[in-house]
C-alpha cells in the first residue's frame, strides 16, 4: 500500500486517498487556519474564572524600561508566581516614549485588555478615564488605608467627579543639573535666571565640554523640556479653558532663547533625547543636564569621580526669582474596567506593588528619581531614609522633592487649568519638538513657526 493511505477511525477500513482527496484536505486545513484567528477572537478567556480564586494569568503593560525598574518587575513577578502557584504573570515592558500610546490604543480597539497598567502617566490615565475605560479603584485604595494612607493631595489627582480611577504611584520633577566644580572655576554661582544659565553655559563650553544639556530631538524629552521653559517664561500651551495660546509673544521669546543657547550644545543635539542628554552629563561631556533624580544613581555607579561635583536647580524662571512649576511626571497604577482577571489585578496592587517591601524597593531602585505617594510607615520611612545615596545628597533631595511636588504637565498646566484630555498626545507627539527644531535650525522664523505649531495644536485639540 502506498503512503497516501489512511485508516478510517470509524470503521477501521483502509482506503486509498486520491490526489483530489489530498487537495480537498489541504483546502479545508487552509480554511481552518485562516478561520482560527476569527474563532480565537470569538472565544472567551479561559483559565481566569470569575470565582475570584487566585489562579490564572495576571497580565500587565508597563512603561518602565530602566534597568533598575526591570529588576524590580522580575522580582515581583517571581514573588507572585512562587507565592501563588496557580498564577502566571505575563507582562510587557514598553518604551514610555512613543511606543506605549499606540499600544494602548490597539489594546482598546481590539479588546485584548490586560489586568493592570502599573505605571501609566497622568496624561494617559486621564485619556483612559475620560473614555470610561478605567475601573473604580475605591476598593484598592481602601485596602491601602484610604485617604490617610496617602500623602496630602495625592488622591485628588486620581479622582474624577468623586470616583477614584487609579492609585497614585510616584511623583518626580525635571530639573537643571550642573557641575559645581566648573561653576566655581568660572566664578559663578548656581544659575537662577535665564541670563545666569546662559552665562554658565557659555563659561563652561570648551573644546571638549558643552554647556547646554537640554534635549532638542523629536521625542517627549524635548516636549517636556520646551514645556518647562515655556512655563518658566510665563507662557502656556493652552489657557485655563483649553483654548490654544501657544502663539504668544512669550513663547516666541522662549524659542529664541533656546535657539541662542543651542550654540553651547553638542553638535548632535538635534537628535538628543533622554539617553544622550544623560549619558553626556554622566560621561563629563556636558556641564548641564535636563533630567530627573536618576542622575544621582547613574553618576555614582558609572562615573563616581563626578559624584561630589554635581548640583541642581529647579528650571530657572526667565527673569530670576522663585522658580515656577516645571514639567514633571506623576505615575499612576490603574486597572481597566474590562480587565480579564480583576482579582489578580487587585492582588498585584495591594499585596505587591504598594506593599512592603516592594514599594520602597521600587523607589530605591534609583534613589531620588521618584518620590513616594504613600504615607510611609515608620519602618518604611527608616528604610527609605537609610539609603546611602539619599543620605549623601540630602540638600539636593530637598530641591528635587520641591520640584516633584510642584510639577505639572500638558495634561494640566496649572491648578487653574482644566485637565487637558489631549495633554498626553501633545507631550508624546512631534509638534513641540518640531517647532523648536524649526526655530533653532532657522527653517522658519520663530513667529511663523509658533503660528504653525499653534495651528497644529488646534487640530489636535479639536479633532485629535
Amino acid at each position: 500500500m502506498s503512503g497516501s493511505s489512511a485508516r478510517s477511525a470509524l470503521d477501521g477500513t483502509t482506503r486509498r486517498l486520491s490526489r483530489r482527496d489530498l487537495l480537498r484536505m489541504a483546502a479545508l486545513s487552509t480554511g481552518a487556519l485562516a478561520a482560527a484567528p476569527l474563532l480565537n477572537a470569538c472565544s472567551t478567556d479561559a483559565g481566569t474564572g470569575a470565582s475570584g480564586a487566585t489562579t490564572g494569568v495576571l497580565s500587565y503593560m508597563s512603561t518602565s524600561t530602566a534597568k533598575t525598574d526591570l529588576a524590580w518587575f522580575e522580582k515581583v513577578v517571581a514573588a507572585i508566581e512562587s507565592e501563588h502557584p496557580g498564577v502566571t504573570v505575563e507582562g510587557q515592558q514598553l518604551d514610555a516614549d512613543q511606543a506605549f500610546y499606540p499600544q494602548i490604543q490597539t489594546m482598546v480597539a481590539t479588546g485584548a485588555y490586560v489586568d493592570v497598567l502599573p505605571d501609566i502617566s497622568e496624561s494617559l490615565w486621564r485619556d483612559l478615564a475620560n473614555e470610561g475605560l478605567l475601573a473604580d479603584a475605591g476598593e484598592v485604595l481602601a485596602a491601602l488605608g484610604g485617604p490617610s494612607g496617602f500623602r496630602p493631595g495625592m488622591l485628588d489627582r486620581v479622582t474624577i467627579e468623586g470616583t477614584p480611577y487609579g492609585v497614585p504611584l510616584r511623583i518626580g520633577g525635571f530639573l537643571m543639573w550642573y557641575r559645581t566644580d566648573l561653576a566655581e572655576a568660572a566664578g559663578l554661582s548656581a544659575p537662577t535666571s535665564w541670563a545666569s544659565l546662559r552665562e554658565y553655559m557659555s563659561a563652561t563650553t570648551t573644546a571638549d565640554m558643552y554647556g547646554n544639556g537640554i534635549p532638542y530631538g523629536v521625542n517627549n524629552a524635548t516636549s517636556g523640556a520646551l514645556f518647562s521653559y515655556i512655563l518658566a517664561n510665563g507662557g502656556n500651551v493652552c489657557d485655563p479653558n483649553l483654548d490654544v495660546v501657544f502663539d504668544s509673544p512669550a513663547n516666541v521669546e522662549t524659542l529664541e532663547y533656546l535657539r541662542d543657547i543651542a550654540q553651547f550644545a553638542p553638535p548632535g543635539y538635534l537628535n538628543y533625547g533622554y539617553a544622550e542628554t544623560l549619558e553626556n552629563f554622566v560621561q563629563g561631556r556636558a556641564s548641564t543636564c535636563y533630567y530627573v533624580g536618576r542622575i544621582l544613581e547613574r553618576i555614582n555607579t558609572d562615573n563616581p569621580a563626578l559624584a561630589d561635583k554635581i548640583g541642581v536647580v529647579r528650571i530657572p524662571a526667565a527673569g530670576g526669582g522663585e522658580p515656577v512649576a516645571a514639567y514633571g511626571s506623576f505615575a499612576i497604577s490603574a486597572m481597566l474596567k474590562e480587565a480579564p482577571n480583576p482579582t489578580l489585578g487587585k492582588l498585584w496592587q495591594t499585596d505587591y506593588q504598594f506593599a512592603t517591601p516592594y514599594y520602597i524597593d521600587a523607589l530605591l531602585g534609583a534613589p531620588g528619581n521618584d518620590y513616594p505617594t504613600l504615607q510611609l510607615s515608620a519602618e518604611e520611612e527608616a528604610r527609605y531614609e537609610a539609603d546611602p545615596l539619599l543620605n549623601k545628597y540630602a540638600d539636593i533631595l530637598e530641591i528635587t522633592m520641591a520640584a516633584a511636588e510642584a510639577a505639572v504637565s500638558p495634561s494640566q498646566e496649572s491648578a487653574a487649568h482644566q485637565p487637558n484630555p489631549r495633554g498626553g498626545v501633545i507631550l508624546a507627539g512631534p509638534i513641540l519638538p518640531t517647532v523648536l527644531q524649526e526655530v533653532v535650525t532657522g527653517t522658519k522664523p520663530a513667529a511663523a513657526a509658533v503660528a504653525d505649531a499653534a495651528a497644529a495644536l488646534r487640530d489636535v485639540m479639536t479633532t485629535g
Partner: protein
Amino acid sequence: MLTGERSQETEKEAAPGKRRRPARAAKPDREQARFGLILLLPALLIFVVVIAYPVLYGISRSFFTVNKLTLAAEWVGFSNFAAELFGPTAKLFSGARLSVIFAVGTTLVQLVIGVLAALLLNRPFFGRSLARGLAIFPYMVPIVVAVLVWKWMLNDQLGIVNHGMLATGMIDTPIAWFDQSWAMTSVILIGAWRYFPFIVLVVLARLQSIPRALYDAARVDGASAWSQFWDVTLPQLRTVLLVTVGLRIVWEFNDFDLIALATNGGPAGATETLPLNVYNVTFFGAGLGRGAALSTIILTAILLAYLGIHIRNARRAAKQER
C-alpha cells in the same frame, strides 16, 4: 471523451446563424468547477480578511472623525481630505518628496553595494562560505537593535565613527550625523546597510545560473573583464535587477521603523517621510480619521502611478507585436 472534443462536437451540431443556448456542462465538469471554487475559497477568505477589509475599512474611516481609544466615529464628509491636501498643517507634498528621496537613494546604494558584493562572493576564494554567511548578517539583525547600534556609533560625542575620524585626523570637530544636512544621508546609508543583503542574495542566485559558455565565448572573442561584465553579466541580470529594484523601492517607500527609530522625522521635518507623517497625524496629530484620509490619498496616488505604468507597458507591448 475529452472535454474539448465534446464542445467541438456541440458547436458542429448547432445550426448556422441560429443562436443556441450553451450546453450545460456535464456533471463531472460542474463538480470540477465547484471543486476549483472550494480550492480558491481559503485564498479568497485570506484576501478579504487580511487585505480587502482593512483597506476598505481604512477608506471608510477617511470620512469620519474617529475617537482613538473607542473608535466612535462622526461623519465629516470630505473635510479630512481637504485638510490633508490644502490645510495649514498638511505635509503631504513635502512627505512625498522625502519618501521618494529616501526610497530612490537607499535603493541605489543598496543596488551598487549589493551587486558588487554578489560579484565578489561569486568568485572562488578561501572562506567564501563564511563571507556569504556574514554578508546576510545585517538582514538578520532586528531593526530596533540595528538602528540603535547605528545611532550610538554615529553619536557625535561618544560614537566610534566620529572617534575614529577624529583620531585619524580626518576631521577636527565631530560631525553631527543627524543634523539637517546629514540626517537624510545617514538614514539612507543605514537603510542601505540593513537591506543590501537582499540584493546580494537575489543577484548571487542569478549569477550562479549564468551559463559558463557565454563567458567562454566572450573570452574567445577577446572580451575584457569589463566587457564581459557589461555585455554578458549585466544583460543576464537585467530582469532580476528590475524586479528587485522595483520591490525595494516599494518597500523603502513604505519604510517606517528605520526612520522612526533613527530620527523620528527630525530635525525640523528633514526626514519626515509619508509613512511617518501618517503615523504622526494618526496618533499624535489630528487623529485617526485624518490619518486614514492621508493614507487613502497616498494609496490612490500609488494606484494611479501603477496604472499609468501598466498602460504604458501594455501600449508598448502592443506596438511591438504590431
